[in-house]
């Protein structure tokens, strides 16, 4: 019986993956419930799942959830695509020339290792509270993973495939569009997946300090009124955004490179 269940859960079927999700999510809820009932009874620190759900519904009823969602989704929805586009373009430029890569590479990795998040207060001082500072911060944190994976993907392109294209008299542009870029696409998508997680951190931090609406703002506001249930409700919404992005980009990656699995 247990053996059978185990086999089912290890399976590749759609039902198995749904079952895995329900099981892990369910156990999390149970552990959470037990924790709030036994160990962490201080409601300022942790509230039981049901209260979080109620806070979530309250936020929806009051329209706050919608307000905050609009602010956050608009900011991420505009800056993230720009970050991806800029990242891909920069990656293409870096991969196209050894000299540029040698000059720009170290600078980029230096910039990349700076915790840009820490510069959030500075951006807010420069750009003011609201959309502009969010846009720039998300752009800056999300762009690097895309640059790095784009360049790496383009450089990794199979030399034999490039030579084949050359032997068919392909132009440089044709080699790019038919060989190196398709080869790099799954790499790029994996960079986009990392960038998405970073963008969410970026937006939350920007909204902590620099806005009047948004999920980050709501988390901050709730924490200042010791409303742990509402705080957790927003954190879970953010977690959902992260998860959805991750699942989408992961499946896109697999769809773009089915030959890698085989």
């Amino acid at each position, binding site marked *: 019986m247990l053996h059978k269940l185990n086999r089912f859960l290890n399976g590749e079927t759609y039902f198995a993956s749904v079952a895995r999700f329900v099981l892990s999510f369910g156990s999390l809820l149970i552990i959470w419930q037990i924790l709030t009932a036994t160990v962490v009874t201080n409601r300022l620190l942790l509230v039981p799942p049901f209260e979080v759900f109620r806070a979530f519904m309250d936020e929806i009823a009051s329209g706050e959830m919608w307000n905050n969602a609009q602010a956050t989704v608009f900011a991420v929805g505009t800056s993230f695509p720009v970050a991806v586009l800029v990242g891909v373009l920069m990656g293409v430029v870096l991969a196209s020339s050894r000299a540029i890569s040698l000059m720009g590479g170290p600078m980029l990795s230096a910039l990349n290792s700076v915790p840009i998040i820490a510069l959030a207060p500075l951006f807010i001082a420069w750009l003011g509270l609201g959309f502009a500072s969010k846009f720039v911060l998300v752009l800056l944190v999300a762009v690097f993973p895309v640059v790095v994976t784009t360049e790496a993907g383009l450089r990794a392109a*199979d030399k*034999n*495939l490039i*030579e*084949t*294209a*050359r*032997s*068919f*008299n*392909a132009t440089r542009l*044709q080699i790019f569009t*038919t*060989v190196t870029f*398709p080869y790099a696409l799954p790499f790029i998508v994996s960079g986009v997946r990392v960038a998405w997680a970073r963008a969410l951190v970026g937006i939350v931090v920007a909204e902590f300090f620099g806005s009047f609406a948004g999920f980050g703002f709501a988390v901050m506001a709730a924490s200042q009124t010791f409303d742990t249930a509402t705080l957790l409700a927003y954190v879970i919404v953010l977690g959902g955004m992260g998860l959805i992005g991750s699942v989408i980009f992961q499946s896109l990656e697999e769809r*773009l*490179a*089915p*030959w890698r699995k*085989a």
Partner: protein
Amino acid sequence: MAQSMNDEHILEIDNIGKTFRRRDDTDLVALDDINLKVKKGAFISIVGASGSGKSTLLRIIDGLLEPNGGTVKVNGKTVTKPGKDRAMVFQNDSLLPWKTVIQNVAYGLTLAGVKWRDAAKTAQGFIDLAGLSGFENQFPHQLSGGMRQRVNVARGMAVDPDILLLDEPFAALDSQTREIMQTELLRIWQQTGKTVLLITHQIDEAVFLSDEVVVFSARPGTVRERIPVPLARPRNLDIKRSIEFVGLVDQIWKLIEEEVKAAAKT
């Protein structure tokens, strides 16, 4: 021009030399003064120890690599870059993994600007010729090694080159699949009348397929010997057991062995 086409040399290789600069700035002479003339419609094989510059020569003929000296002429025109008159088939089935069989076979045509509908029609013809009917919409990773190599050859044929250059196309296949591919290649060659230049390290493959086997010396590669293969055509696998065939294979073996031994001494 007044000459009959059959007597014309479609490929003329004159004094080709190639020296590579190694990482440590020393020179590596890969090819030394190669001369070779090939008649239109001929099937020529090149055999030789590994590292003797066979692939290098094929790349030069295809225009992928510039020689240090000498000229390659195809149909009387000096080669400076890849062109429509030549197509290369590499050992590793260098198929685009994100393209289907028919898209891969049509690849050279689409690069040349042929409209997809026409390219697909031509590609379909070569897919049928290569025995790949029914696999048009499969991806390379769904095919066996032998099938992939058929796609690879079909892709080369599809651009309708005058000369087909094959660099150890069957080396990665098991011996049974290889024999099947050899007879298939013969059939396709006979049906299309292309000139074929094949590199192989399988001597029996070279003898079975070719009108002439060119034996390379060990590095630096030079033409050590040209062995005509007077076996009647059409050939089937049975001739591999004939005394003539075995004798030719033996003769070529000895030449290569001598070369390898001589190279080991120096």
